[in-house]
Structures are given as structure tokens and as C-alpha cells.
């Protein structure tokens, strides 16, 4: 540090931060507890952007993120663009699974919301299992966006051969499909603009010394069916009434999900794959249901990612204290368990030698508490969860949108003040 020369200092800073993070993940003791900036709308509000603009103004989002990075100096950051900068593309494609600010009568200053619905009917498991691609093209995609509707008219390709394939070109002149392809081309161009700016932002931030915390995302197969296909009520009924179909479909999904995540992560600067876990919470299923429906398919995804040299970062939402003993069958030092309301001190006891922990400054304190509360909690986190390494500081579910600025600052200050390993 002391002899660092100006021109290389950002590079050194970058390397130092990556090292700190990698040490924590590999269960080595870093020089200090690393801390991640994990914010969606807190920092855009902090920079004076409306929620709507945070979703539509790519440069505005980049500038707001850079401002927060400069102020907080995290060891890594969660890239907000892929989750937030979707407004223009969603407008073009007529996306239906979200409500978002500034669209369709929603006010400019509320966060976006996912709509819990039955996007796949109970009797369609068999279709998914028989041919997931056909199911997605002909049934699922047409339901979730206007521009995808005409895809239902695409030929059923696996049923075609020889001259039938030649004849099938006819579909591509169907006026609805032609229209859809034109709309989707526009959506694609817009998405290209967004991703171009995002890649530029990642590079610019790297040059300033800020590493990415994670680069790709994956999903737990149960959550895929719960959130995106069957809806929250449907999936719970399915555990009782369509057990075998659900298990078979999840087995298929466990093989498909990594096909998207692996190439995305391999081409990126970070090997972290973020896996938000929506439904493993303590009350949300019985221990037997967890051991049958939740953990085995998720573990399959996780092991595939690890075998491909990636680092799964599992975000255990809600409280998962009762699950700790059931999630120990993973190789040591290869992933991160990020806890929201789980008893992280107990997690340290149970899992401390196995997996790096991340979390979990309570959202209640970030929103309604004061800097002293934050510092006291961080100090305890560092002393107990951070003992010997294997710990990364973060808010329980990142930095809540409504956090007080001084509380966010206190979390970062406390980590630097108390987080050093002698």
C-alpha cells in the first residue's frame, strides 16, 4: 500500500480487492472482511433519479452507480443494469410479468413488481417434460409478452423432415410472425444498446479499481416452477397432487439452467453466479418437502456450476435456520451462502468450515434504525461470523431502497473500522 505509485494504484486496488474476496470465499483469512455494494434503488434515489429514470436512463443509472461506488469504496459491487435497465426493451416487447414505474399507469416513484400468476397450467407439466423448447416457444413465451404471441404459429420443428422442412418456411411469411420478428428485432437492438453500455460500465469501473461481485445468475429449479411457471399457490398444490411430474420437470430444469449460466459467467470478469433462493424459508415447506423438492435439484445446479469452475452465490431469502443441517453436502470453499434473516451466528457454527457466509445487516435497521445500531450489529457480525475469515459483509437483502444514507455509510465505515484481521 505505502509504496504504491499513482499510475498503477487502481490496478493494485482492483487486485487487492479481488484477493480479499477470493480469500474469503476460499475460507482463507483475508487482510480484512470484504464488503459488497448491493443496491437497486437506494443509490439511484441517493443520486436524485426517479425510480422510472433508473429503469430507462442507462447513462443516468451508470452515473448514479459510479457516484455510490466512489463514496462507499466497496470491495466489489452488484451490477444493477441487468435487473433495472429494462424499461425500454420491455416497452417494445410488451412484457407482461412485471409492473414497473412510469408504465401503464404506475407512478414514477415505486419499484417494479413481479406478478404472481399461473403462467403454466397444471396439466402442462407433461408438455414441458416431453419437449421443453416446444413448450417455451408455443405456449410460455406467447403468454408473457405481446411480441411473442405469434410464436405460437411457429412450426413444430421436431416433427418435420425432408420436404416438410422446406414447406415449413411458409410460416415465416405469416404476417403476424413477420411483424413479431420486426418488433423483436427492435427489442434486440435496444437490448444491444443497453448491454453495450453495461459492458462499457463494467470496464470503466474495473479501470477505477472496482471489481464485479458476480457476473451471471442461475435459479433453483423449484423456484423456476414456483415463480415463473405455476405461481405460489399452484406449486404448493403440485407438491401434493402432482409430485412425480414436478420432480421430473425439475430434474430436466436442473440440466437446462446451467446451459445459460455457464457461458455467461465464463465470458465475464467474475466467476460468481448469483442464485436467488425464493422458497426455501423455514415455514414455507416442511423439512421433508425441503429434502425432497428443494435441495436435491438445486444441489444439482450448484454442483454443475462448481464443476465448471464457477462460484455459486446462493441468496437464502427469508429465514432458513432450520435448513442449515440439510445444506452441508457441498465441497468446502467453493460457494457462498448469503443469508437474509437466518441466524448467521448459528450458521457460522454449523457451516463455518464449509462455506463462506455473506450478510446480514437487517433491513429494518437500515431503514428505521440509526448509525450506532448499524455499527453495533456490524461489529458483532465481524467478531462472530467473521472469525477466522470466510465472511463477506452485506445487508440482509442488500441495501434496502428506503435505507437512510447515514446507515449505509455506517455499514461501510464499521467494516473498515472493525473488520481488519490482525
Amino acid at each position, binding site marked *: 500500500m505505502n509504496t504504491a505509485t499513482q499510475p498503477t494504484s487502481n490496478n493494485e486496488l482492483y487486485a487487492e480487492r479481488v484477493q480479499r474476496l477470493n480469500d474469503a470465499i476460499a475460507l482463507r483469512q483475508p487482510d480484512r472482511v470484504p464488503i459488497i455494494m448491493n443496491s437497486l434503488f437506494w443509490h439511484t434515489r441517493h443520486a436524485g433519479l426517479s425510480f422510472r429514470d433508473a429503469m430507462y436512463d442507462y447513462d443516468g443509472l451508470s452515473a448514479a452507480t459510479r457516484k455510490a461506488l466512489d463514496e462507499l469504496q466497496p470491495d466489489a459491487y452488484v451490477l444493477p443494469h441487468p435487473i433495472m435497465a429494462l424499461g425500454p426493451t420491455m416497452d417494445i416487447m410488451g412484457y407482461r410479468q412485471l409492473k414497473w414505474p412510469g408504465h401503464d399507469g404506475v407512478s414514477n416513484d415505486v419499484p417494479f413488481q413481479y406478478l404472481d400468476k399461473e403462467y403454466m397450467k397444471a396439466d402442462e407439466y407433461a408438455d414441458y417434460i416431453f419437449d421443453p423448447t416446444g413448450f417455451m416457444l408455443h405456449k410460455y413465451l406467447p403468454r408473457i409478452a405481446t411480441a411473442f404471441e405469434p410464436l405460437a404459429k411457429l412450426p413444430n420443428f421436431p416433427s418435420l423432415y425432408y420436404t416438410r422442412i422446406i414447406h415449413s418456411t411458409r410460416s415465416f411469411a405469416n404476417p403476424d410472425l413477420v411483424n413479431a420478428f420486426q418488433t423483436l428485432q427492435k427489442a434486440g437492438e435496444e437490448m444491444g444498446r443497453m448491454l453495450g453500455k453495461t459492458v462499457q460500465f463494467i470496464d470503466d469501473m474495473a479501470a477505477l479499481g472496482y471489481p464485479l461481485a458476480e457476473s451471471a445468475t442461475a435459479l433453483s429449479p423449484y423456484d423456476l416452477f414456483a415463480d415463473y411457471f405455476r405461481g405460489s399457490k399452484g406449486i*404448493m398444490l403440485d407438491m401434493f397432487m402432482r409430485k412425480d411430474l414436478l420432480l421430473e420437470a425439475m430434474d430436466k430444469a436442473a440440466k437446462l439452467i446451467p446451459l445459460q449460466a455457464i457461458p455467461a459467467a465464463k465470458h465475464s470478469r467474475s466467476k460468481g453466479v448469483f442464485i436467488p433462493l425464493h422458497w426455501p424459508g423455514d415455514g414455507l*415447506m416442511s423439512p421433508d418437502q425441503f429434502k425432497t423438492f428443494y435441495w436435491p435439484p438445486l444441489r444439482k445446479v450448484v454442483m454443475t456450476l462448481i464443476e465448471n469452475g464457477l462460484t455459486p452465490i446462493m441468496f437464502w431469502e427469508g429465514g432458513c435456520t432450520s435448513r442449515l443441517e440439510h445444506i452441508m453436502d457441498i465441497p468446502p470453499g467453493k460457494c457462498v451462502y448469503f443469508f437474509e434473516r437466518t441466524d448467521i451466528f448459528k450458521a457460522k457454527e454449523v457451516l463455518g468450515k464449509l462455506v463462506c457466509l455473506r450478510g446480514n445487516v437487517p433491513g429494518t435497521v437500515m431503514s*428505521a434504525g440509526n448509525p450506532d445500531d448499524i455499527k453495533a450489529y456490524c461489529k458483532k457480525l465481524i467478531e462472530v461470523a467473521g472469525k477466522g475469515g470466510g465472511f463477506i459483509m452485506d445487508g440482509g437483502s442488500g441495501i434496502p431502497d428506503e435505507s437512510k444514507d447515514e446507515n449505509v455509510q455506517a455499514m461501510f465505515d464499521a467494516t473498515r473500522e472493525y473488520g481488519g484481521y490482525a
Partner: protein
Amino acid sequence: MSDNQKKLIEMIVGMQSPEAIELTKVMLEEGADPNTILDICRKAMDSVGQKFEAGEYFVPELILAGDMLERISELVKPLLKEGGGGQKKTHGKVLIGTVAGDLHDIGKNIVTFMLDVNGFEVKDIGIDVPVATFIKEIQDFQPAVVGLSGFLTLAYDAMKETVEAIKTAGLRDNMKIMIGGGQVDQVICDYTGADGFGLNAMHAVKFCKEWFGVKE
């Protein structure tokens, strides 16, 4: 109780949904009194609720039980005579809703379910409920307890605003307010001005029993 009646209770409590629906149809065809069927459902729901309290059942069991109740009610309702229903709610009125900006309803539905099986008359006014709607519904229904549910951090402000509006409307004095859902604790309870916070549906039942002076 007849054999079929006993069997129906067992099926509902044992989470055998298709079988329970089938048996209900058979019983109705054989001329069973629709009110008796509803009473049986109520008994079954009591047991389901007890198993939930005992940590033997979890959210999915309650959802399935609720689904069975809904399906059976659909079969029974057309056969009910005016004024029938057979439910006896004794302890008092509770109004519950998910506050403005928040769409989460699973937790609230479970609280509603548990208050209902514990003998309270519950009115559930849904999700994303604007402050003005809370006030109007309170004026109409006249509950002694109001429950505010919310899972997002933005719900803290919505809860606070709802409590304040209740005060401004002059309705706060003889009323108890409880909050719950996702992340609530004493800090948030104080912040919103509620009388109590609950981490699960049993807490909601406990508050109501206490506030209505219900003896165990």
C-alpha cells in the same frame, strides 16, 4: 358422527384432496345436509390449524387445506338455504389487509385462516390496499382489531401512514392495531405506531385473544 363424516375429516386433515372432494360429492348425492358438511370442514380446519401451530404442518398444507375448503364450499353453496352457513363466530371482529404498494398475500391469508379457525370474524380486504380504503372499510365493518400485513421495506411507511390516517379519522381510540409480515420487529412497531407486531399467525391469534379477553 357417521362413518363418512369421520372419513371426510380424516381425508381433509390427511391432505387427501381429490379423495375428499369425491367423498363430498357422494355424501351430497346421498342427501347429506350441506350445513353438516360445512361443520365437518370447520372441524377439519381446526385440526389443520392445530397441526400448523404444533409445527407439524407448514404453509403448503394450509394452502392445500384452504383449496379443499374452497372446492367443497363451491359444491355445497348452491344447496344451502338462505341464512344457512352454520358458522359461529363469537369472539369479535378483525379487519386485515396488505398495505399499499405491497402485493404479498400468502402470510396475510394464513393469518386470516388461523384467526378464522380460532373463532374470530375476519374481514380480509386484500392486497395493495390504499389508506383511504382501509378507513372506509373500518368505518363500514367496525372491527376492534386491525391487522396490517406487509413484506417489503416500503411497507413500513405505508403502515405508518395507515395508522396515522386511522388516528386522524378518529377511529384509533378503541382499536388495537397489529402488524406483521416479512421483516418487522419492535423498531418497526414503534416506527409505525402499532400496538404489537407478530412474526407468525399464532402471534396474531395470541394478540386477538388477549385484546378480546378470550379465555383459553
